[in-house]
């Protein structure tokens, strides 16, 4: 395998971590702090009660939450974040039915050079509306998104909503729904990953990660299908779609080649299948397809993992 890392790139997400419930608190399971040692130390020292801080709020409110500007907010690590240059965060709860399995938190810095978007969409009156999002320097695209809504089946949020499956869109600039394509193209956004975020109540949430070439959210995306409807009785997942800067397309035209398949405990995706929790791996390029780090996030449905999305940067 090609383990030579390309020249380091500035990434859109600077910190990724996940928290797991232990008793009535959320404790840190693992994180990738990208060298922000002081912030990591500050993080390791704390835990959250339900409703407390950003992860606790995502747990209590049972929904993904975008938080921009930590000063004066409920964010607990404001000082350390400020020192590390982190200004925004998104918390994504992982629910299995009513039970919280984990909260994934990503943190971003505010600077004019970083382009990308991480958005939370939710259903209102039969339409997907932007709940909130963090866009870095893509201000115009942010404005456009705030003024766009998606009926079922349309665009990335509407598509994910109606198909109940993660989706990966390419070449956003040339057609990620008509209203946003133009603006997305101008902002340099190339690849979009959309995923359903199931919560215990009826409200529908869709999370999108829109990646730009210069400051990518990820340079490799994968979508794995783990539903028994697709993989049978075995605890397993098949790679249904994916794109990689280095390996090119990761899907297979199944007239010819079977898709990649992993079983529980087989590699990082197998670890998600076995543990039911997200996985974050960094500092071991041979285990992360030659990239510096990877994140894999399970999405539950009918009491079991239905899909796993992973991104590598």
């Amino acid at each position: 395998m090609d383990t030579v890392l390309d020249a380091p790139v500035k990434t859109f997400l600077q910190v990724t971590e996940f928290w797991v419930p232990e008793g009535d608190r959320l404790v840190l399971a693992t994180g990738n702090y990208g060298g922000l040692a002081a912030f990591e130390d500050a993080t390791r020292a704390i835990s959250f009660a339900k409703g407390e801080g950003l992860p606790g709020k995502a747990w209590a409110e049972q929904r993904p939450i975008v938080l921009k500007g930590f000063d004066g907010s409920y964010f607990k690590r404001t000082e350390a974040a400020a020192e590390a240059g982190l200004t925004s965060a998104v918390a994504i709860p992982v629910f299995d039915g009513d039970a919280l399995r984990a909260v994934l938190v990503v943190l971003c810095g505010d600077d004019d050079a970083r382009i990308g978007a991480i958005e939370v969409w939710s259903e209102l009156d039969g339409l997907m509306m932007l709940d909130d999002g963090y866009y870095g320097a893509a201000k115009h695209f942010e404005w456009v998104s705030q003024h766009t809504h998606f009926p079922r089946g349309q665009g990335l949020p509407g598509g994910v909503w109606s198909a109940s499956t993660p989706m990966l869109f390419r070449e956003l600039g040339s057609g990620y729904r008509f209203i946003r394509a133009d603006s997305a193209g101008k902002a340099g956004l190339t690849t979009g990953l959309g995923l359903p975020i199931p919560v215990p109540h009826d409200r529908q949430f869709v999370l999108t990660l829109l990646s730009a070439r210069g400051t990518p959210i990820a340079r490799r995306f994968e979508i794995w299908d783990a539903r028994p409807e697709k993989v049978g009785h075995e605890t397993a997942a098949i790679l249904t779609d994916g794109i990689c800067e280095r390996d090119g397309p990761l899907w297979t035209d199944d007239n010819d080649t079977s898709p990649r398949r992993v079983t529980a405990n087989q590699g990082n995706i197998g670890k998600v299948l076995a543990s039911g929790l997200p996985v974050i791996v960094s500092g071991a390029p041979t285990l992360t397809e030659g990239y510096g780090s990877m994140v894999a996030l399970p999405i539950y449905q009918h009491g079991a993992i239905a899909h796993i999305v992973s991104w590598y940067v």
Partner: protein
Amino acid sequence: MQKLVVIGAGMASGRLLEQLIEADATAYDITLFNAEPRGNYNRIMLSPVLSGEKSYTEIVTHDDDWYAANKVTTRFGEKVISVDTARKVVVGENGDVPYDKLVFGTGSSAFIIPLPGHDLPGVVAFRDLEDTSAMTEAAARPGAKAVVIGGGLLGLEAAAALRLRGMEVTVLHIASHLMERQLDPAAGYLLKKDLERRGINVILEAQTKEIIGNGRAEQVNLGDGTELPCDIVCMAVGIRPAVKLAQDSGIACGRAIKVDAQMRTQTPDVYAVGECVEYDGNLFGLVAPLYDQAKVLAKTLLGQDDSFVMRELSTKLKVTGCDLFSAGDFADGEGREDIVFRDPARGVYKRLVIENDRLIGAVMYGDTADGNWFFGLIKDGTDIADMRETLIFGPSYQGGAQADPLSAVAVLPPEAEICGCNGVCKGDIVKAIEGGAADLGAIRATTKASASCGTCTGLVEQVLSVTLGDDFVLPTAQPICGCCDLTHEDVRRLIKTKELKSQEAVWQELGWKTRNGCHSCRPAVNFYLLADWPLDYKDDPQSRFVNERNHANIQKDGTYSVMPRMWGGMTTPQELIAIAQAAEKYGATVKVTGGMRIDLLGIQKEDLPAIWHDLNQAGMVSGHAYTKGLRTVKTCVGKDWCRFGTQDSTGLGIKLEKKLWASWTPHKVKLGVSGCPRNCAEATCKDIGVICVDSGYQLSVAGAAGMDVKETERLVDLTTEDEVIEWTSAFVQLYRENAKYLDRAYKWVAKVGLDWVKETLADPATRKALVERFDISQSVYQHDPWAERAVPSEAVKFQPMADLTQEAAE
């Protein structure tokens, strides 16, 4: 070099070129014509490109570099004007190209219904990248509306894609359910619901009257008066083979270019492949048979034999989140039976069609996991009579979730020792993998794990699999039995590593699929536990075969044989008298065995404690003639009597037997001690053999004289009896601690290598530790099992628990 000209760069001709070049890159000088200004791309993936879920660059199968690298001359964007088969020349817009062999791969074009208005701008087919681009462009207009005519595979993929692009989409379909050629009405209904959930409007039994508009398509009118305003009309009702060029060139055509099973047309040196061919009256639209044709034609062109065979086809719809699979024939008919499964809550519908105990059709909606398995049954014509009742639940129907074979290794902490020989723990191996070691060889080179005796190879491979995922292909190992996916070696290693000290711990931690094992695995696990943890684990008689539980050999009539020990083959008149009396008293048949002992056959189970008691009284103990343990130590008379004898072989044999008796081992252990190299005690075909020589003792191991016959191999030469006893004990302990249950010593030594055994035992400290562990085990197990069972409280267990023969019948 012969000249090959191919007309049309589609999927079939692309596959043909690949196969041809791979088989023999020098066979042909190839020229490829294509009317489209580009090379080959994966046409069946156009719908995800239309939806934005794939990009065009991702579906290109051959780019300019590929053609250049394979020396294919490309004439793209150039139309072929004519073919002169007499002169063997292809006439292109930019000049002639002579050929030795010519292949038509002209494919098909969309079928356009000749409705009024069908030729207006804005009416497109869905066949190529140009159509796709036209639709993408139309979708870019705010509020754009599309009408898709045709509710087949292609039309529905287009509709879903256009919807994702943001359009308002209406599908018009002439039949009463969608995809009527691939789906039955029930699946068609579910599909319609699914599409409607995506905001796609579906009109069935639609009679399209006309397309109207001012200079471009603006509205579709239906026969019932419905008016559908639109910005674009996509006509996806079918394809027709593109054969005009072939017809004009005088190639025999029916509905398409006629070919035989070798893909030859009726014109010499002219071939055809793909959607433009007609074979045996059939046309082809799906990709699988096109690939088959390409393979056959490549062989034909290389002068090899192959024939195209029609096969069953399966269909999937490329709409993300829409799981649909259909294969075979599912029309109702005489003698056909259906098996239907529905789960309304999950939106699952499955239908199998059976005729004459063969599966002939399958339709699935919402759950397609077993699609390929059913498809295989259809293709192979498998007799499904035996599995009819559970057929619809698929191949993995077992009524429960499957255990995960990697879980035991996955949960091991980093400090868990994997390789006992070299003291390598899991964390070391994972670090090596992270450092780039990607296979067993690299792990051995960097960590030494599994580089010595090799019994931990399976575990190392599992660590590789757990860490690397599917990049490491796990070799299939023989599992211990149906109860567990791990091998014997893995189970042994994990019992040590995870310090599992009870059967329950083994069942739980190693993922046993049964409640408490079976007759195959439980005796093995019982042995492993008692061998590794003699002080913590107690031997479980209920996990032993009847012989070991009853300490006597069951015979085929249900009676038992009883054989007292005769140390080194020595006995006394008193012992012989006791044996004779017992034989008479219990009606035994008497036989002298090959192992220098006397066997009493035909003893009833109830009598066993009594005969043991009698033999005990005369000072005799169990000969363990029934165990996976020490059997006999065969000796010759040695230097006290024999004129050739060099040492006291009988005396040494007795000492060895007294040391080793009553020890449990993976399989039986037989020893021989010969007083000189003439080898009267046949020591060189035993598990352990000692040959006495003038200078001392030659210790050899791993012989066999059963189904396999094998001479022992020299382990070491020693000078004193004490050394022989020490080395022998150490060897037995090493065997006990490492071998697979039911592997005789010679099999085990063959697996781990005699060199490793020698090296391990040569270290005095290791040898001493082995002997100490052997002695600890013997302190627990070296007792006469007969004496323990001849006492009244135990003897009663050999009787029936109740005798109801005297009970009154009423």
